[in-house]
């Protein structure tokens, strides 16, 4: 069959599809128009952070199909928030959650499983509080709500070098294809191995920008949220040293949203620094024994050990 392009188009024009539609189909297989994307976006559920005010500045929580970077000084609660998200993504659909699973890539060894258990218990007790009647009748759903099942829903990778980190991100594509229920990938932290043993900085930039594109692709293809935890560094600008996120200016472009956690006196605060659709905003939050919660909900102020 030797048709020229013109003949092919003429044939397609003859079909009863609107020419416009045909053209769009022909044009790009993966393309979508903004109208369809808008209705899809409006029906998306978000992953709650555990704190209502934090959800508010994030537009309802952590969004799927987006890459969110969370940065902050050590001890401000990055890992806590990471663990909280790994638990919260598993809140069953009946209780307003996504009922998904989590991939947790730990590069620093800061994933404390006892703490995860505690946060899972906190999450369950909050669910029971919000849905008391649900709890009574849904005996089948109740079986799920055990901290053990929340722990079982976290796929954990412990990474000890940047080579392993690159390898695991390359492997994720296959892994996520086999585990379609994963709705969040957390990397704690993306920085750690890239801050040491890396002499060629230009190579580091290339490797990191390649990684970030891969993560973008995964989040879109598998409709999941990617959360990257990042450390801070000092940078000399305009005559003074200021704290900025690590990995440099080039990396700062490689996320959809950026949330910065910081101390304001004795209070933990979060600042939404970058988002294509939401305004810059900040809010206090707290880390309690149950996990990440609204500030002022209980005695939650951390005693800072200086």
């Amino acid at each position, binding site marked *: 069959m030797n048709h020229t392009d013109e003949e092919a188009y003429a044939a397609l024009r003859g079909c009863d599809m609107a020419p416009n539609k045909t053209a769009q189909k022909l044009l790009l297989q993966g393309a979508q128009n903004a109208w369809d994307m808008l209705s899809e976006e409006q029906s998306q559920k978000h992953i709650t952070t555990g704190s209502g005010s934090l959800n508010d500045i994030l537009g309802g929580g952590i969004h799927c*199909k987006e890459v969110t970077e969370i940065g902050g000084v050590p001890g401000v609660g990055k890992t806590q928030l990471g663990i909280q998200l790994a638990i919260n993504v598993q809140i069953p659909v009946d209780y307003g959650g996504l009922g998904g699973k989590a991939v947790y890539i730990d590069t620093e060894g800061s994933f404390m499983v006892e703490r995860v258990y505690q946060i899972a218990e906190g999450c369950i007790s909050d669910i029971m509080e919000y849905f008391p009647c649900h709890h009574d009748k849904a005996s089948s759903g109740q079986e799920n709500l055990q901290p053990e099942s929340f722990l079982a829903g976290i796929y954990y990778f412990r990474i000890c070098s940047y080579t392993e980190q690159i390898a695991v991100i390359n492997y994720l594509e296959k892994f996520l294809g086999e585990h379609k229920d994963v709705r969040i990938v957390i990397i704690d932290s993306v920085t750690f191995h890239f801050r040491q043993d890396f002499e060629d900085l230009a190579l580091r930039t290339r490797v990191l920008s390649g990684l970030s594109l891969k993560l973008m692709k995964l989040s879109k293809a598998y409709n999941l949220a990617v959360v990257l935890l990042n450390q801070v560094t000092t940078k000399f600008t305009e005559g003074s040293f200021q704290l900025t996120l690590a990995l440099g200016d080039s990396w700062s472009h490689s996320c959809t949203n950026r949330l910065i956690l910081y101390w304001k006196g004795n209070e933990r605060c979060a600042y939404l620094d970058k988002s294509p659709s939401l305004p810059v905003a900040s809010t206090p939050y707290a880390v309690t024994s149950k996990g990440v919660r609204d500030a002022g909900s209980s005695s939650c102020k951390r005693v800072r050990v200086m």
Partner: protein
Amino acid sequence: MDMNEEQPRVEDRCIPWSDGTQLLEDAAERKHFLPTGLEGIDTLLGGGLRKGQLTEITGQSSSGKTQVCLYSAAHVAARHMGAVLYLDTSNSFSPSRIACILDELPVSLIKEPKDVRLKRVMSSIICESVFDIFALFEVLDQLEVSLNGKVHHDGNKICLLIIDSVSSLLAPIIGGENSQGRSMMISVAMILKKLAHKHNLSALVTNHMVAGNEAPKPALGESWKAVPHIRLMVSRDRRSNICTATTLKHTLLASGRRMKFQLLPAG
């Protein structure tokens, strides 16, 4: 029989020439300006993004590059100028933000109700995610085939192509000892300019900034600088939320001029 008559004539192999008056006529009739909808930027650009040209926006993270792209897509589609193809590399194409920008637009003379307009405009913005350079080549190739096919009737012909950001696709392959990345960058540049010229569309790309020796500099540097017709730098004051645009390169107007512009509050 003369052998030469069998051969195509040398003139037929060459593209036809045109003279200055034809060019001027073409410029006046076809090389329209597509408004970005941001007053300051439209003033700087002499009316907006010009058809047949490649415009680049550079700026630091969170300086407003994506916002300029979203505004342009919304305004061009809203004013019946044609369809928009948006290639997104960083999952930052936000339909809800476009809806919010459209909502603030005054209802036009023909009194198209807002909900009808919203659906019409959103349907003529087509978005595709592109995560590596090869996917970009493929999409641009498909676009060219589709434009050659002339299937679109005039109202829905693609008139604006946006790539946000072209630099993030090129960053993993440029630099080091391998020169292949650089040649792919030049290929992208050639394809974009060819599309813009042949199909009378406007191309808008963003280029992120990286740390330089003294001040931040665009990631695609000196050898890319020759590519866009216009290079515009945007920056944003965090406190007042007022953005500033500066022309770093302009083929028609003086460069170095700056204007302030303001984005709608989000939400």
